[in-house]
């Protein structure tokens, strides 16, 4: 049953598809108008991150570093130490992929106020092949002390997240996937960093999902409705994980599936397993990249081939449900 407290879109048969980065680009401009401390650093990917409007309106607050991810992170650190609120932008595979060590020392070590935005995460750069895809970014940021890690679910949620990210004092990593996907949340859907959201209530099994996989989880739940009542929780904050919400739902259903467009090692699946392992162990399955690299192909094709769809979630749900019977 849809949780009406979330004010999700009413008509699930006609969801509007919009790319997360559109919401990001729009929110950055709105935010920069309100807060003069906000600056943007970009490594030769201005349009990919939808920052062209920002550049038009605030040319003096946009630092184009060219193809220099490491230097970009350091510049941002120096600007943050001077009172700015820098947003560091690139594809997730390059940032935090290529500049992780700068993130570790110049940013995280002293909780320096730098925001890292990883675009085209997961299979975003589908046809570009494995080297432009990113399934490790949440793992490598989650392990850094002082870091907050976000993977919002859709266009509207990204817009809200950007404001919260700005208001928070300290380092944040936020990932976005590329394709235009179904918008589930509305302007009035609540959003709070660190607070997981029950999108659909159910008693038989919990599915914790983030990013693009939230919609897949909702589809899976809808398809199984009547036979298995699936609880779907949008875990947009991977760190700090909403331990209370995870344990509460696991206690209610006794079975857990996680779903993410990321490696099953180190991301949401790992985070949930860690919490449940310590607090309330229940049978659990993880949907995600199974310790493998991607390859060239359209994102949708790749999602199917590597098992990142509702079908895989349904399969894992059935394994757990049948085991129990």
């Amino acid at each position: 049953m849809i949780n009406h407290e979330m004010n999700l879109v009413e008509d699930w048969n006609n969801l509007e598809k919009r790319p997360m980065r559109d919401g990001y680009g729009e929110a950055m401009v709105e935010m920069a108008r309100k807060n003069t401390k906000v600056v943007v650093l970009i490594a030769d990917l201005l349009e990919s991150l939808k920052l062209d409007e920002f550049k038009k309106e605030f040319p003096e607050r946009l630092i184009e570093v060219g193809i220099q991810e490491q230097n970009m992170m350091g510049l941002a650190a120096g600007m943050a130490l001077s009172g700015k609120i820098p947003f560091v932008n690139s594809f997730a595979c390059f940032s935090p992929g290529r500049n992780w060590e700068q993130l570790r020392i110049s940013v995280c070590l002293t909780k320096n106020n730098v925001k890292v935005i990883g675009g085209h995460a997961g299979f975003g750069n589908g046809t570009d092949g494995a080297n432009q895809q990113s399934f490790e970014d949440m793992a490598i940021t989650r392990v850094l002390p002082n870091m907050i890690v976000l993977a919002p679910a859709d266009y509207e949620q990204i817009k809200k997240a950007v404001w919260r990210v700005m208001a928070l004092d300290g380092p944040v990593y936020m990932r976005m996937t590329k394709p235009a996907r179904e918008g589930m949340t509305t302007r009035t859907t609540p959003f709070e960093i660190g607070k997981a959201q029950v999108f659909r209530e159910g008693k038989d099994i919990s599915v914790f999902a983030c990013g693009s996989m939230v919609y897949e989880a909702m589809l899976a739940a809808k398809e199984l409705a009547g036979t298995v009542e699936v609880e779907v929780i949008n875990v947009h904050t991977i760190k700090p994980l909403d331990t209370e919400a995870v344990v509460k739902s696991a206690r209610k259903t006794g079975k857990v599936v996680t779903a993410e467009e990321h490696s099953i090692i180190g991301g949401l699946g790992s985070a949930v397993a860690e919490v449940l392992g310590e607090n309330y162990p229940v049978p659990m399955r993880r949907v995600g990249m199974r310790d493998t690299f991607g390859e060239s192909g359209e994102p949708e094709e790749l999602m199917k081939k590597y098992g990142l769809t509702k079908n895989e979630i349904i399969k894992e749900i059935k394994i757990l449900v049948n085991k129990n019977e």
Partner: protein
Amino acid sequence: MEVKANEIRAEVIKMLVEAGTGHPAGALGSADFWTLLYLGGLIKINPQDPWNEDRDRVVLSAGHYCPVLYAVLAEAGFFPKEELSSLRKIDSRLQGHPVARMLPGIENSSGTLGQGISVAVGMALAARMDKKKHRVICFMGDGEQNEGQVWEAYMSVAKYKLSNLTIVIDRNNIQIDGHTEDVMPLEPLEEKLKAFGFAVIEVDGHNMEEIEKAMNRAKVTFEKPTAIVLHTIPGKNVDFMENDYAWHGRAPGMGETVQALMELHKLRTLDGKIIND
């Protein structure tokens, strides 16, 4: 000021022997520069108000030089001198490699090389955006120039013509594995820096007058950023350490410490002619 620099050197030796580990060669070699910078009025700082937003920023990019920075900061009054003996010990603010803002006067975290220069560029950019008049001084090692990030940063310095930034490179010709020109050659360094858009000044890093002149020239050079190449002798004024790369990252033992301190004492008192402390 030369006498003061040798006092700082003696402090560094005492800190390192107390800590049992650390990097003496660069710290001793650059002591003249650091002493003049902090105690010779070359920068706008206030130990009583260490984070004043109009202060000059001194960014130590080569973090392993920190004992000498800690010593001059304490001497300038940023924190009590008694704290120097806590270097590298548990619960100390004097970390083996500096951590930003952990101690008054420490602007950035460094130790993994090549990062400080980017942070300094970010500070210079922010200062320009805010129309601030303060300067940013970034101190680097010569071995550090091996890092690709350093050259990325130089490109961005040139792009934004950051004349409010001065970089100082300690050209002591050594790094951990040997002489810089054997490990990973840097020469022709001056030409490289010029090609990257810097006004380059080469100075004898043990000549206070030359250092002061170069720093003052950097302040009034507005058309491009300035790079000062400080030619120094690693381990300067401790005979058995001078020019020996083995002392890059090794603390002196007890006997060596006594000998080093005696040599420095002799220099400080000009063979006992000035004052006997």
